[in-house]
């Protein structure tokens, strides 16, 4: 616990520390530093796990983001082709056919429904994933910074150790080394503590993100499909009406009927008449 006594008041800390050095053995101090070194090593291994989790989380997040974007594009594709089909049907629909107005309404409604679906996907899914993935670069940068500060800390510690272990002790140098050591320690501890708190939370948050995304999409799909199936049914009914209207005509697509009867009235050609 000795090192923790080097609080904000550096002077006082250094003074006490110096007294300690005088009082107890140098070896004790060295041992402490070495032990600290070991602890730092252990801490760093543990942090490594967090760092790996972070990387995996970022990769997974990017993948989901990419797939969400692809899904959005696919929905737009479906909308487009579906619209074209409806448009073609409208084009070939004669004005005297049953259900012309109904068809127009259905086509319009379908288009609106698709637009709404697309918009919601963009808002609830694409943007969510965008926000989620955008936080990783900054965190990774801080992890890297921590790594650098750790190196500084380690080297300051080694330096101090070396001075401590020297046969001839230069108190001034030791004091300076202590100061640097403290500073390095503080800087490192600060960023380390921050990350130590944040990283696990961040890691856990991935579950929440995924749950949100899939809750949203399943909800959106549910609503969309329900509505769309209703419109499908309406179109089906319009087609039925049309069928009834034209029920005199043959529907079967089979071989064509051939009429080869030269004697029949229909075979009279105008050309013959013209020729007279």
């Amino acid at each position, binding site marked *: *616990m000795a090192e923790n006594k080097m609080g904000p008041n550096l002077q006082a800390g250094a003074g006490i520390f110096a007294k300690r050095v005088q009082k107890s053995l140098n070896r004790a101090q060295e041992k402490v530093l070495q032990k600290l070194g070991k602890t730092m090593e252990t801490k760093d291994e543990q942090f490594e796990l967090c760092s790996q989790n972070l990387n995996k989380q970022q990769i997974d997040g990017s993948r989901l983001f990419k797939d969400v974007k692809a*899904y959005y594009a696919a929905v737009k594709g479906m909308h487009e082709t579906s619209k074209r089909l409806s448009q073609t049907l409208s084009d070939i629909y004669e004005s005297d056919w049953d259900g012309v107005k109904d068809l127009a309404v259905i086509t319009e409604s379908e288009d609106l429904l698709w637009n709404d679906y697309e918009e919601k996907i963009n808002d609830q899914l694409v943007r*969510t994933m965008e926000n989620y993935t955008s936080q990783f670069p900054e965190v990774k940068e801080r992890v890297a910074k921590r790594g650098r500060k750790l190196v500084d800390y380690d080297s300051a510690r080694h330096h101090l150790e070396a001075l401590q272990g020297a046969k001839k002790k230069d108190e001034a140098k030791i004091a300076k080394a202590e100061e640097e050591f403290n500073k390095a320690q503080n800087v490192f501890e600060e960023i380390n503590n921050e990350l130590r708190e944040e990283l696990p939370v961040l890691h856990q948050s991935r579950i929440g993100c995924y749950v949100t995304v*899939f809750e949203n999409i399943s909800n959106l799909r549910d609503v969309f*499909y329900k509505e769309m199936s209703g419109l*499908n*049914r309406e179109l089906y009914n319009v087609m039925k009406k049309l069928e009834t209207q034209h029920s005199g005509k043959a529907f079967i697509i089979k071989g064509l*009927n051939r009429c080869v009867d030269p004697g029949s009235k229909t*075979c009279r*050609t105008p050309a013959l008449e013209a020729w007279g």
Partner: protein
Amino acid sequence: MAEIGKGVTAGKLAINVQKRLTRAQEKVLQKLGKADETRDVVFEEMVANFNKQMGEGTKLQKDLKAYLAAVKTMHDASRRLQDCLADMYEPDWFGKEEMDALAEDTDTMWLDYHQSITDKSLQDMDMYLSQFPDIKARIAKRDRKLVDFDSARHHFTSLQKGKKKDEAKIAKPAALLEMAAPSWAQGLISAHQVAQTNLSYNQAEEDLGRAQKIFEELNVELQDELPALWDRRVGVYVNTFQSLAGHQEKFHKEMSKLSENLNDIMTKLEEQRQINQSNTQSYSQPGWDEAETAVGEEGWIDDTDYEAQPYTEPNWDNDGANVEQGGWGDDQYTQVELDGLGQVGPQLDAEKSRIPQIWGKHPKNFTDFICKSDVNEKRLFCFLQVKAVHDYAATDGDELELKMGDVVLVLAFDNPDEQDDGWLMGLKESHWFQKKDISAKGVFPENFTQRV
């Protein structure tokens, strides 16, 4: 044709060439207005309809194909998303099996949908359209035969007109020839002349008849078929779109159900996680330092961007009790460090009742907790505040160095056995404000201090 023999092929070739020449000739004459063209306005209308119908059908087929391609893309995208979720899913989470089953069902549903549209709508459309090229060819053939017919007609007409002229033309020389001819040849020459003219005339008549027959045959067929085909288009469209709508309706209904199921699973999963979080006190994470403090409960990074869905900030460690940490001893929980979340209430009540045991000498005075908070909302609850009235030099690593005037926050001992009579465990207030952790706590003699 090639098997029969070169001679026949050559002959056929010659005939075709002849045909084409004649037609071209006729067409030119028609264009120049020297020959009238048989026109059938009604038939032309039929042909126009036919072309329109073929165009409509072709467009529909193209649209259907595009739609099916989009369906396939949608299926793939949907499956990839599902895979993301499946890969993330841990076995102990709620609904793992249901989710896998759901993924399978969804996949099957997409495949069925794609298949049924391909089988019914697209294939019917293909079959419908397959008859058009043939009819189109026949219409073209009819046109050609019509030209042939016209050409034969004109030829015959011109022969007819020219017959009288010819007769007059050859009459005189023929008569002269006759006079000069021997008696046995009398009458033969003129007879021969007449026979010659009659031959070509008859030939032309025969050609005309044949051309007419061929043309009429084709014409009649088409005149029947085209209107019937035109009428049938309604039925085709009805079938196509009815079938499509039917399949879509079924597909969408089923997908809606599956989506609902997925939503349920997700909702329950969220609930499960929330329950788990509030149940477990220890939040598993690598144990960092020995005597360090609680896992920060800084909430999730600002989630104001999660608009549409109320994404509730997970209450990870919202209980006031600390995550276990070395050196504290859960039983002696008498201080609590919080980060702006969580409530303190129940725990502290429990702790309060323990105070008399710990503080043998001062049972009644410490029922209230003193709260020290800094600007970041980190709070330290302690029992007691004392002020050093005398310097104290720490003689051991565990001791707290005191200077006169230091305010010390009294904390509980990790282990009550360690507590010596007259000694308290504490943390300098200044240290708390600076470091916000209790790592620098130490013991100190109580009589060096005074309560504040």
